[in-house]
């Protein structure tokens, strides 16, 4: 590969030297294709410019605060011995899932704890492993599915950066016909303070398989106030591949520290008669961009895309979604709800694309913003691109405050204004959370949201 020329776009601290150090720190036995992909991704990263003012995928985004400087990829500064042990012990659980089937916990992209699968599931071929393990045990599956989908939502540069520096992550495989009822939990923790992490989760469900997967993103200093500039960097990706007739529930809860610059790039493939329900809870970060791409590739595919965001202080959340209907008789249903407090800012940009011949598509997209502060700003860009006529496609976007009549009703019954407001905000979110079937997860998410209000 060539080193970037003087005129190359910003690489920040992700310099050729840092990348060389990252490659040097990889285990000696990683496959050649893995290293080649990383090299290609790094070259792509250096070739691509930072988002520009005429870049439609970044309309309304706070581009001026995007930076790649001030962070070091953790792999370039390995910590050893007692320091590592102390750090590992400090990785907090974002929330507990009492009945977890298995879990993996990563601290700065290194596995620090795990709860193994029950023997019966393992014997039926279920795999909950790290990427590093999967590189050896399932190289072909990994090679086929790892970051194999196109980036269509504007962050190809950051996706390339992720591919170049990704160190480890979760690899979850549920074979044909196997049902895993209790959640598989993956926690990605960042030590914060100048570090860059690249969390990765890959979920593959075989035909007729069922599973629930939870991704949790957390910094130990989640409540530390944001400084004048981003102090930590997280650039994660999660790919979900759901085969014919399979059903996946995917929950991602993000509570990075308030000084984190975060990117989370999702790609979901839904095959014939398969169902995916994904729910993203966004609480942390100083500036957090989330991209979610659902491709409905075969008849009967259904993707339910849900999100709840609490935007407070001066947080900036940027959510970009794309529902692509590539086959007839497919369905997608998106509901993104934001509550905005203080000086927070949110951007929702969603697009439903119906390909020619994807007749009988049923697509819905809804963005609801609850304005709780006079200084908050909500941007909505709900879009449609329809190229087939026998479809049912609708979208809606609203921005409004708490209904004064509802406040009055509660206050008239002796509820304090603060409590009444909280109840109504939770009522606003409940429409999304209610769609989760798993009671325990529902309750955990509620409690997690409550921490952002107290």
């Amino acid at each position: 590969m060539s080193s970037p020329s003087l005129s190359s776009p910003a690489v920040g601290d992700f310099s050729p030297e840092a990348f060389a150090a990252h490659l040097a720190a990889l285990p000696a036995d990683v496959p050649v294709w893995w290293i080649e992909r990383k090299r290609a991704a790094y070259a792509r990263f250096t070739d691509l410019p930072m988002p520009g003012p005429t870049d439609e995928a970044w309309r309304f985004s706070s581009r001026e605060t995007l930076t790649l400087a001030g962070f070091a990829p953790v792999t370039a500064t390995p910590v050893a011995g007692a320091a590592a042990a102390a750090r590992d012990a400090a990785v907090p659980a974002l929330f507990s899932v009492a009945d977890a089937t298995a879990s993996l916990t990563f601290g700065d992209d290194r596995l620090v704890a795990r709860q193994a699968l029950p023997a019966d599931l393992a014997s039926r071929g279920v795999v909950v492993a790290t990427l590093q393990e999967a590189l050896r045990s399932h190289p072909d599956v990994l090679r086929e599915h790892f970051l194999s989908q196109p980036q269509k939502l504007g962050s190809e540069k950051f996706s390339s950066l992720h591919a170049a520096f990704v160190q480890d992550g979760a690899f979850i495989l549920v074979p044909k016909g196997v049902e895993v009822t209790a959640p598989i939990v993956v926690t990605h923790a960042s030590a914060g303070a100048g570090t860059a992490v690249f969390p990765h989760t890959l979920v593959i469900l075989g035909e007729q398989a069922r599973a629930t997967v939870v991704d949790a993103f957390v910094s130990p200093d989640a409540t530390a106030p944001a400084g004048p500039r981003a102090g930590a960097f997280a650039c994660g990706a999660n790919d979900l591949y759901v085969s014919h007739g399979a059903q996946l529930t995917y929950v991602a809860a993000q509570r990075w520290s308030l000084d984190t610059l975060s990117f989370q790039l999702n790609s979901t493939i839904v095959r014939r008669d398969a169902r995916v329900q994904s729910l993203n809870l966004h609480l942390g970060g100083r500036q957090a961009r989330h991209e979610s791409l659902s491709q409905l590739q075969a008849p009967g595919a259904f993707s339910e895309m849900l999100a709840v965001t609490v935007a407070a202080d001066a947080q900036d959340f940027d959510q970009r979604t794309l529902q692509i209907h590539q086959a007839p008789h497919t369905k997608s249903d998106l509901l993104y709800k934001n509550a905005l407090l203080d000086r927070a800012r949110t951007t929702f940009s969603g697009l439903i694309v119906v390909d020619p011949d994807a007749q009988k598509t049923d697509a819905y997209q809804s963005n609801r913003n609850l304005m709780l502060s006079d200084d908050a700003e909500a941007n909505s860009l709900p879009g449609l691109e329809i190229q087939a006529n026998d479809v049912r496609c609708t979208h809606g976007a609203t921005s409004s405050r708490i209904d004064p009549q509802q406040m009055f009703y509660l206050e008239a019954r002796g509820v304090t204004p603060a409590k009444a407001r909280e109840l109504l905000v939770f009522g606003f979110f409940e429409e999304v959370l209610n769609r989760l079937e798993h009671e325990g997860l529902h309750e955990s998410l509620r409690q997690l949201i409550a921490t952002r209000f107290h």
Partner: protein
Amino acid sequence: MNAASTLEPAVPETAAVENPAVGIDQSVGDFTYDVKYDFDAGTGLTENTVRYISAVKKEAPWILDFRLKALQTFLDKPMPTHWATGDLENIHFDKIRYYLAQGQKPKRTWEEVPDDIKRTFERLGIPEQERKFLAGVEAQFDSEAAYSNIKDIVAKQGVIFANSTEALREHPEIFRKFFGKVIPTGDNKFSALNSAVFSGGSFIYVPKGVKVAQPLQAYFRINAENFGQFERTLIIADEGSEVTYMEGCTAPKFSTSTLHSAVVELVALKGAKIQYITVQNWAPNVFNLVTKRGVAHEDAEIKWIDCNIGSRLTMKYPGVVLKGRRARGEVISIALANDGQHQDTGAKMIHAADETTSTIISKSISVGQGRATYRGQVHIPRRLKGCKNNTECDALLINTNSRTDTYPAITVRGDSHAVQHEASVSKVNEEQIFYMQQRGLTEGQAMSLAVNGFVNDLVRQFPMEYSVELKRLIDLEMEGSVG
């Protein structure tokens, strides 16, 4: 098809067919006359073109200066293809004629209008009685108004109704203050182009408290191959006044591309009401790139009723800047995109004062491989109270390969506003078509009826003669869309 013949009149042989469904002549708007142009700026756009136009119009130096600065802005600005269609690259600015006029002064009476121009208007399908009834027709033939008689009637109320050249020459004290202020030259590449080469269009001033009973009308025609038409319209409604302006377009079909790029500025002062109605039916080779915006002051109301049926590519997003408290803005948009057409239309609502309200209702129909796009912007900035917006976009897709897009952008700051956007995409109800066919209608007639039903509640808001014209145009466009 090649319609530009020197025969007099030149009617393409394929077009002279009666439409059995509605009994109107399909060749409407499908002809051209050989007209001798006294003034012609030639093709291409340079500083000399701009100086030539300004000299012919005997303009004040400040206008020439304005034009020259605009030309530079136009040349400096890139094509907005990062968000707009790449079809814009197919405009060949060097092959366009930027100014043509017959060198005649606007006519006062019908008798003074030259016979060949009269024939053009006849072919537009305006019956004789209606022409007399529509006493307020300010008809524009190419760059200069060729016919006008409403002027004298409204002049008695103190209303100034003139073309842009005349208004800027005779009433600079009224028009200069607002000219280019609602839509600055640099607003976009095409508003800059218009500012450099504008001619024709209507300048209207309605004095305080005057309610103009008759709608003011202007029919625009393009009648020269490769000819760009750059009207400039400025309407000022002084405090408490009311005015309705109507603009309708048909154009001959030409084989090479034609550019139409108008700028329309409206100013509704305190408590005034302006309603601006457009029926756009340019030929399917016309690029129609229009900037339309109004400023509504306290308690004022601006309503755009915008219907787009013709052209190859229309890009038009009528806007209202709600500048005064309790100002109201409304856009009603109907678009019909047939094979080879792209109707990229929408609305902009910029709230800039407390308790301002805006409404956008857009309905589009895509036929064959036509593409209809809604693009909208609603903006409520910081520190405002009690603003409301309601937006509804409905798209109807007729054929399996029809296309529609929706791209709204909504910004809301603060916790005292209510903003709502809804959009839906659907096809014609098969049961309705079946029901109508059971009762003896052909599939085409049934489809036409269903489409008219889809837009009916909006069409009813048009003045009667426009809604009749609109229904006919929809019937024409729907022909051959099925089967």
